[in-house]
C-alpha cells in the first residue's frame, strides 16, 4: 500500500467507530467524497473508456470494521457453536446489487444528480429526507468533479476520445454508444470503489445499449465492444463481473436484438475470464443465439450461465413481486435473481443439509466435536417417514436460527452502511427519501437462505431408508455408530452404498422424491418469511465454494461420504453419482420446482469434449438445455472437460495459462486452483468421459 493509499485508509477508518449516535449516512458520504477528491488517477495505455483509481479495498475495510463493532453489540453466543460447526451461517451482505441501469444509462451521472433536486423539492420539510438528499447530492457533486478530473487526466495523457467522453459525461447524459459504454464503466467504478457497495451485474447490456447502437457507425461497433470486454475484465472483480443478454418484456416478447449477437461475439472473442454472462432464455429466444452461446462454452469459455426466463419470473411473482418488476429482473452475482427495484441480500444465510441430517441421527450432537448444536431427540423412529420428519425438524431449526443470525445484522444496517451512489439510481429510494441500506428504502428488501448439499443429504436419506427401514441390515443406532467412526472397518459397506445404492441424479423417481420433499418443505418455510428490513426471505439452492468449507465441518454421511469430504455442488448429483449420464441427471434436477427457488438453483453439467463434438454435438447440447427448461428447470451451467488437457495443465501449468474452469459460481484459471481442486476437476472429466 502506498503512503497515499494509507492516508486515505486512515481517513476512512476514522469514520468507522460506532458510538450509537454516529450518522452512518453522513460518515459514508464523507468517506466517498474524500476518496473521490483525493484518489490517485492514472490512465492505463490499454484502457479505452476509463481511468484507473487506487482505492479498491478501502470501503471493504470500513464495512468489516463496522460489522465487528455491531457484532459486539448484538452478537448472541447461543448460536456461536452451530455457526462454527457450519450447521448454518448468517451474516450481513452489502455485496449483491444491481443499479437501476435503465436510469444510469438514460440519465448519466449528471442526470442522476439533477434528478435528486426534483425529489428534494417534493420532500417538503421532513428533516430526515432533506438530510438524505443533501448528503447524496454532495456525493454526486463530488462524483461529477471526479469525472472532470478523470477527463483532465485523460486529456493530459493524450487520450482525446476518453477525455471528450468524460468531459461530456461530467455535464450531460450519454449521447453515443461510446459514451453509454463509458457510463457503464464510470458508474461501476463509482459504486464499487467509492460507495463500497459491490455491484454485481452490468445489467442487460443488449437492451440497455440498443438505442445507442441504432445511431452508431456500425463498422466501429465490434471493436468497441471488444475493447469494452477487455476493460471490464481488467477490473478483476471478485467472483467475476456479470452482464446479461436476452430476457423478455412485460408483453412477453423476447428481447434478443442485433446487439445481443454482437455482444456475445465480442465476449467470445475477448476470451476473458473475469467477466461472466447470463443468457436469459425464453421460449421465443432465437435458437441460433442459444447455439452461439453453447458453441462458446464448447470452445472452453465456460463462464456462461443459461437461465430460464419464465421460471425466474414466476419465482419472483410467487414472492409477491409485480409482474412488470419480475419481468425486468436482474441476476446479481452468480444465480440470484431480483426483480427491478429489488436490493437483494443474496448470500448471507446458509444451511448445511447434510449437517442437519447428522443432527437427526445424533440428537443434535456434532459428530466431529460432540457439542450440542442441534435439537435433541430420543433416537427412536419407527418408520422412515418418522425419521424424515425429524430431519425436516432439524433443517427448520437450523434454518430458523440462521435467519435469526442474519436478522441481528440486518436490523442494524442503519449502523453499518450507507449507499449514496447506488441509492440515487433507485426511484423508490428517492420517493422514500432514504438510503437503500440505512433506511431500507428499496421497493423490495429481500433476504435469502441458501440450502447446501441437497444431493449429499438426499442420497444419505435414500441409503438410510434402504439399510435401516427396507433391508433392515442395520439399526439407526448402528449406522450412526459407523458414521461416528467414519466408516472405519466398514469399507465394503461404504463402497456398496456409494457405488450401488440408488442416487439422486440418475433419474430414480423414488430418490428424487426425497429431494423434492426437502425443497418443498424448505420453500414453504423460507419463502415469504419476514425479515427485519420490511421484506421477506427467499430460498436458493446453490453451494458454490462454501461446499468445501461446509464439507470439512461435516461428519461422515450415510451416502458413503467420508468425514470432511466436500458435500454436493448446487442442485446437482453427488460427485460421480450421475451414473446414467447428463440427461438422467437433468431429469432428476428438473423434478425440483424452480419456481420456488427465487434466489437461484443451478445444476453444473459436466460434459466430456467428445460427447459434444461436431454439429450434432451442438444440437444435442441445445436439446439438453431447451428440454431442461421445458421441464421447468431454473438454470444450467456447462463444463466441457477434456481429461488430457486438464492433466497436462496440471503437470505443466505454464503451457496452459488461460485454461478456465468454473469452480463454483464463477470462473477461475485452472492454474490458480489448489492441487485438491485440480484433482477433482480431472476426476470429474474422467467421469464425464466414462458416460460419454
Amino acid at each position, binding site marked *: 500500500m502506498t503512503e497515499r493509499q494509507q492516508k486515505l485508509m486512515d481517513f476512512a477508518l476514522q469514520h468507522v467507530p460506532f458510538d450509537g449516535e454516529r450518522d452512518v449516512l453522513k460518515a459514508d458520504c464523507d468517506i466517498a467524497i474524500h476518496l473521490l477528491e483525493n484518489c490517485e488517477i492514472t490512465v492505463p495505455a490499454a484502457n479505452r473508456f476509463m481511468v484507473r483509481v487506487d482505492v479498491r479495498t478501502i470501503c471493504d475495510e470500513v464495512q468489516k470494521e463496522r460489522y465487528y463493532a455491531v457484532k459486539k453489540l448484538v452478537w448472541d453466543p447461543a448460536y456461536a457453536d452451530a455457526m462454527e460447526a457450519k450447521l448454518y451461517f448468517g451474516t450481513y451482505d452489502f455485496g449483491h446489487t444491481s443499479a437501476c441501469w435503465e436510469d444510469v444509462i438514460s440519465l448519466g451521472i449528471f442526470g442522476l444528480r439533477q434528478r435528486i433536486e426534483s425529489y428534494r423539492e417534493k420532500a417538503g420539510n421532513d428533516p430526515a429526507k432533506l438530510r438524505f438528499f443533501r448528503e447524496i447530492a454532495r456525493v454526486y457533486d463530488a462524483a461529477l468533479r471526479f469525472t472532470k478530473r478523470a477527463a483532465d487526466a485523460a486529456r493530459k495523457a493524450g487520450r482525446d476520445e476518453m477525455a471528450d467522453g468524460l468531459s461530456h459525461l461530467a455535464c450531460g447524459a450519454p449521447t453515443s454508444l461510446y459514451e453509454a459504454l463509458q457510463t457503464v464503466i464510470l458508474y461501476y467504478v463509482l459504486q464499487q470503489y467509492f460507495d463500497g457497495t459491490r455491484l454485481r451485474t452490468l445489467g442487460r447490456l443488449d437492451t440497455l445499449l440498443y438505442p445507442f447502437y441504432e445511431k452508431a457507425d456500425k463498422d466501429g461497433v465490434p471493436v468497441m465492444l471488444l475493447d469494452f470486454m477487455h476493460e471490464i475484465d481488467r477490473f478483476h472483480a471478485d467472483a467475476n463481473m456479470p452482464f446479461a443478454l436476452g430476457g423478455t418484456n412485460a408483453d412477453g416478447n423476447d428481447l434478443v436484438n442485433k446487439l445481443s449477437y454482437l455482444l456475445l461475439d465480442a465476449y467470445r472473442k475477448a476470451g476473458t475470464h473475469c467477466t461472466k454472462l447470463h443468457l436469459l432464455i425464453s421460449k421465443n429466444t432465437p435458437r441460433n443465439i442459444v447455439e452461439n452461446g453453447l458453441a462458446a462454452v464448447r470452445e472452453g469459455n465456460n463462464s456462461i450461465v443459461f437461465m430460464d426466463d419464465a421460471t425466474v419470473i414466476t419465482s419472483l411473482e410467487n414472492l409477491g413481486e409485480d409482474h412488470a418488476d419480475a419481468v425486468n429482473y436482474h441476476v446479481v452475482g452468480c444465480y440470484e435473481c431480483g426483480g427491478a427495484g429489488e436490493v437483494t441480500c443474496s448470500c448471507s444465510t446458509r444451511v448445511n443439509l447434510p449437517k442437519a441430517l447428522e443432527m437427526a441421527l445424533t440428537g443434535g450432537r456434532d459428530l466431529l466435536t460432540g457439542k450440542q448444536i442441534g435439537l435433541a431427540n430420543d433416537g427412536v423412529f419407527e418408520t422412515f417417514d418418522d425419521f424424515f420428519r425429524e430431519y425436516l425438524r432439524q433443517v427448520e431449526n437450523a434454518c430458523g436460527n440462521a435467519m435469526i443470525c442474519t436478522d441481528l445484522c440486518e436490523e442494524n444496517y442503519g449502523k453499518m452502511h450507507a449507499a449514496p451512489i447506488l441509492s440515487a439510481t433507485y426511484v423508490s429510494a428517492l420517493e422514500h427519501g432514504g438510503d437503500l441500506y440505512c433506511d431500507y428504502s428499496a421497493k423490495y428488501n429481500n433476504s435469502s437462505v441458501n440450502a447446501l448439499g441437497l444431493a449429499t443429504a438426499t442420497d444419505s436419506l435414500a441409503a438410510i431408508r434402504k439399510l435401516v427401514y427396507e433391508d433392515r441390515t442395520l439399526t439407526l443406532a448402528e449406522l450412526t455408530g459407523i458414521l461416528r467412526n467414519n466408516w472405519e472397518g466398514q*469399507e*465394503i*459397506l*461404504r*463402497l*456398496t452404498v*456409494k*457405488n*450401488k445404492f440408488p442416487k439422486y441424479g440418475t*433419474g430414480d423417481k423414488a430418490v428424487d422424491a426425497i429431494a423434492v420433499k426437502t425443497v418443498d418443505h424448505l420453500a414453504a418455510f423460507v419463502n415469504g418469511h419476514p425479515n427485519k428490513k420490511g421484506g421477506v426471505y427467499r430460498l436458493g439452492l446453490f453451494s458454490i465454494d462454501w461446499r468445501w468449507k461446509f464439507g470439512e465441518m461435516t461428519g461422515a454421511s450415510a451416502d458413503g461420504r467420508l468425514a470432511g469430504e466436500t458435500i454436493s455442488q448446487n442442485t446437482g448429483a453427488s460427485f460421480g453419482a450421475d451414473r*446414467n*449420464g*447428463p*440427461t*438422467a441427471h437433468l*431429469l432428476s434436477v428438473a423434478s425440483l420446482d424452480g419456481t420456488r427457488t427465487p434466489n437461484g438453483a443451478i445444476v453444473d453439467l459436466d460434459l466430456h469434449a*467428445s*460427447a*459434444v*463434438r*461436431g454439429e*450434432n*454435438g451442438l*444440437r*444435442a447440447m*441445445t*436439446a*439438453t438445455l*431447451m*428440454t431442461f427448461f*421445458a*421441464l421447468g428447470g431454473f438454470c444450467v451451467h456447462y463444463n466441457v472437460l477434456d481429461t488430457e488437457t486438464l492433466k497436462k495443465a496440471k503437470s505443466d501449468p505454464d503451457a496452459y495459462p488461460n485454461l478456465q474452469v468454473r469452480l463454483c459460481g464463477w470462473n477461475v484459471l485452472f492454474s490458480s486452483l489448489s492441487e485438491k481442486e485440480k484433482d477433482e476437476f480431472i476426476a470429474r472429466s474422467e467421469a464425464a468421459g466414462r*458416460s460419454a
Partner: protein
Amino acid sequence: MKGLVSGIKRMEIHDGDGLRTTVFFKGCPLKCVWCHNPESISFEKQIAYFREKCRHCGACREKRDENAAARCPVNALTVYGREYEPEELVNEVTQDEPFFRAGGGGVTLSGGECLAQPDFAVEVARLLHEKDVSVYVDTCGFVPRRTLERILPFTDRFLYDIKAVDPAVHKACTGQDNALILDNLRFLSDAGADIEIRVPLVVGFNEKEIPAIGALLKDMPGITKVKVLRYHNLAASRYEALEMENTLPPSDTAAEDVERAVFALADCGLNAVNGTMAD
C-alpha cells in the same frame, strides 16, 4: 418374449441426428478382428472381471457369478447381459423422450447384431414406432432377408456396415462371406430405405477396399451418408476382463488414412464423412 441386452447408452450423439439412446443387443453372427464391443459378441450372459478396479475385499467370495457381481462393491465384477421384455426395454429407453423431441433424436438398436434377435428387435421397433419415437437400426447386414423385411416398416434409418467388397478380405476380417450382406444392402436400397453406410477403416485389413466400396455405393439409391470410422485400439481391457482372446489389431488407424478414404469416397459422389469407432 425376452431379449438379451449388453448395455444401454443415453445421450449418444454419434449415431445420427440429435440426441439418441442406443441399445446394445447381445450376440453377433460375425467375429470381426477389430470388434470394440467384445461384450456383445456372445449370445450368452457373461461376467467380466476388471482386475484394476478390484479391492480384493472378498465380497465375491472368489466366485464369478451373478450373485458375486451383485455383491461386488466397486463393480469390478460386472454382468454383461440383461434380459428384457420388449415393453420393459421400451420404457427404459424412452426415458429421454423429452430430449429426443427437442433435438430430432430417438432410439438406435445396435449391438452386437440387433437383428440376430429378430422377434425381439422387431417387436421393440414396432412399439417405439407406435410411440412415434424415431428408430435407427445399426446392422452388419448378415441376417436373413425376412428379418429386414419385417423391421423395415418400423425403421427410420439403417446404419449399415460395409467392411469389404472382396469376399476373401471380408472373410479374413469377419469370419464370414459377404454375399448375403451385399444382397441385403441392395434389397434395402431397392425398398427405398434411408441408409447410412458405416465403414470401419482398419489399416492392414481393409484399407484397400475403399475404391471397391465407392464403386459399389456410388449409384445406389437411398445412401444418404457414408461414414468412415477411425479404428482405435481401446477395447483391450474388456477382452481381458471377459477372458476372451484379444484379436485387436495393435495399431490405430491414422487420421490421414481416414481423411484419404473420405476423400476417395467423396470422389465417387458420395456424402462421405469422418467418424471414429470410439463413438
